[in-house]
């Protein structure tokens, strides 16, 4: 287990280095920076040069990258060039909020997948089974952007808007109830994926020898379902959850922007709009690191669930 964690950490650092190198390299190729993004024509060339000197933007790219990497290794992600606050301070709360959003979305997906999946697998061909098929098709096909816009349009005219609607207040509580509509929307493709997998896995597990043995022993049906079919079904579900984290992070960009949940996704969008390179680098790295950490957790859980893999 420890070997896994160690190798993953090494891999993670390697990947983050590559990503940051890539972005810096693109900067070199593209030219232009936060100062050139200020398109107020009244800023003179002199002022721009001074601004660049103050922010250290006129140093050669290799030097800037080296400085950035050494600082980042110490935990200092630099200063936002646009907002003039430390990058980490800008990222901290939105990171937590997106974490809450992702956790909520995953929980919803797990809940729906397990309850509906078990019910549908037990009675193949029943109305529950067919309902699940329809849900899977619709949830997988409807883009989250569409769902978010629909949800927004729906709650816009109701009093619900003030409670769970978009917020521009950056002091929103991390655990705010406003996360619920965003979480529901974000979970849609996950629900489709998890439901399909669970239904198939449980259907297969119910045919297994050990289920028949347990039933013959007189074990009550609910115990059979829980103890004997859940474990084999949970395994692939954990793996899929791990793989879906990248998609959740990507999806959160659009969902947060539309639904107004001030998380990492929204921060990414504003960093892109203002071309705030330190902030963008920080957000990208933190997001990638978070996803990789999530994958690691999923792998650990997988090994805990199935001792054979250890």
């Amino acid at each position, binding site marked *: 287990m420890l070997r896994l964690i160690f190798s993953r950490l090494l891999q993670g650092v390697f990947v983050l280095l590559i990503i940051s190198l890539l972005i810096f390299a693109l*900067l070199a190729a593209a030219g232009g920076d936060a100062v050139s*993004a200020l398109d107020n024509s009244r800023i003179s060339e002199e002022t721009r040069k001074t601004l660049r000197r103050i922010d250290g933007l006129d140093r050669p790219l290799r030097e800037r990258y080296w400085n950035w990497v050494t600082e980042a290794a110490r935990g200092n992600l630099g200063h936002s060039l646009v907002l003039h606050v430390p990058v980490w301070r800008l990222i901290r709360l939105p990171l937590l909020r997106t974490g809450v959003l992702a956790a909520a979305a995953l929980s919803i997906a797990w809940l729906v997948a397990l309850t509906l999946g078990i019910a549908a697998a037990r009675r193949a061909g029943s109305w529950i089974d067919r309902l699940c098929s329809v849900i899977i098709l619709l949830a997988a096909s409807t883009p989250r*952007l*569409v769902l978010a816009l629909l949800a927004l*349009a729906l709650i816009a005219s109701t009093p619900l808007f003030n409670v769970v609607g978009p917020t521009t207040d950056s002091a929103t509580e991390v655990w705010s109830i406003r996360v619920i509509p965003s979480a529901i929307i974000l979970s849609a493709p996950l629900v489709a994926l998890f439901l399909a997998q669970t239904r198939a896995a449980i259907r297969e597990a119910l045919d297994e020898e050990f289920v028949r043995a347990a039933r013959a022993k007189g074990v009550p049906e609910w115990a059979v379902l829980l103890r004997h079919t859940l474990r084999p079904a949970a395994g692939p579900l954990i793996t899929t959850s791990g793989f879906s984290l990248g998609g959740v*992070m990507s999806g959160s960009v659009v969902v947060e922007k539309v639904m107004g949940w001030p998380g990492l996704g929204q921060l990414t*969008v504003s960093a892109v709009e203002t071309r705030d390179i330190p902030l963008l680098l920080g*957000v990208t790295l933190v997001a990638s690191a978070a996803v990789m950490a999530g994958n690691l957790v999923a792998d650990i859980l997988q090994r805990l669930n199935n001792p054979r893999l250890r």
Partner: protein
Amino acid sequence: MENRSWRRRLRKLHGRGSLMAGASVIALFCLVALFAEPFAPYAYSSQSSLEPMAPPTPIRFRDAQGRWRARPFIYARRLVDPSTQRYEEITDRAYPLELFTRGSSYELLWLFQANLHLFGVRAAGAEAPRVHLLGADKFGRDRFSRLLIATRYSLLMGPIAAVIASALGVLIGVIAGYKGGGIDIVLMRAADVVMALPALVLILAVRATFPPGLPPDVAVKLALTVFIFLGWAEMARLARGLTKELYQRKYVEAAVSLGCSPARLIVRHILLNAALPLTTQALLILPIFLLAETALSFLGVGLQEPEASWGSLLTAVDSNLFKRGHVFAELSPALAITLFVLGVRLIADGLEKKKREREEREVSSSYPLTSPRTGGSS
């Protein structure tokens, strides 16, 4: 005997059903993409100051005096209340609609000039009102026309990116599966890492390192490159798994012992048999590329004005939508996206059923199925 046969036929039709339905939907979209200009009453970029942010034009058969007319017609409208975008019809003059109007000129199928449009206002002069099936945007451009032309761009970006990324993925996967050993481990680790990355965040970051006002073809190439860099992994894993599995089959062993060259082996025996599951998987990931492009355009870093993509058409939507009243008109690009993705999924589902049927046949027969094209010989 009879019972069993009709049940089997029904099941076959059911599998065929999704395939047919999906294929028809996609075919319809392709048709619209090819003939967007003639189907649309107006050019997608033609602005008009007559009716900015107008709701859909009501098409009437019965005029203000209560008389019924043979031709549908519309009235001119004037803006009554700018804050709520309320329009009022001017009922003194009726403008009849007609099929196959002559309007703005365009290049039909990029081959020759034409100016025939499917429908429009008859004898439309500069003062004639426009028939907006889905209303107009803030520059007075017809939303319906823009929706049709956006089909072209979205249909281009999504599938092209998906095809190239899938091809690359299959190449890498087959190499990994065929060679095995160190190359296999390295390539699959790389695939794992790429699959785990938050794609959209990285795409946005890459896009942001370039100046915002990129010329459109450069922006498109950039977006395509990043999509491909991030999208090859899933296909690679599948291709690698299939290659390894198919390599175990008897006919491959036979072909190798007969001296079949590796290239021929890969193409004729492995790829041909893997074609069905690979295609299904490619179809399943196609919507991801389409939606990534939509998200980019929606966030304003994809296709720029005046070009239209489904994503960029949705940027104007905000929480005042329901108050304005014409929800469907403004959300119509969303419906288009959903229908397209649904169509692709239905095709994938149909192919999946075909694969299962084939596997059932293979299991039930005594011998493993030989390679479908070669009939067992190399």
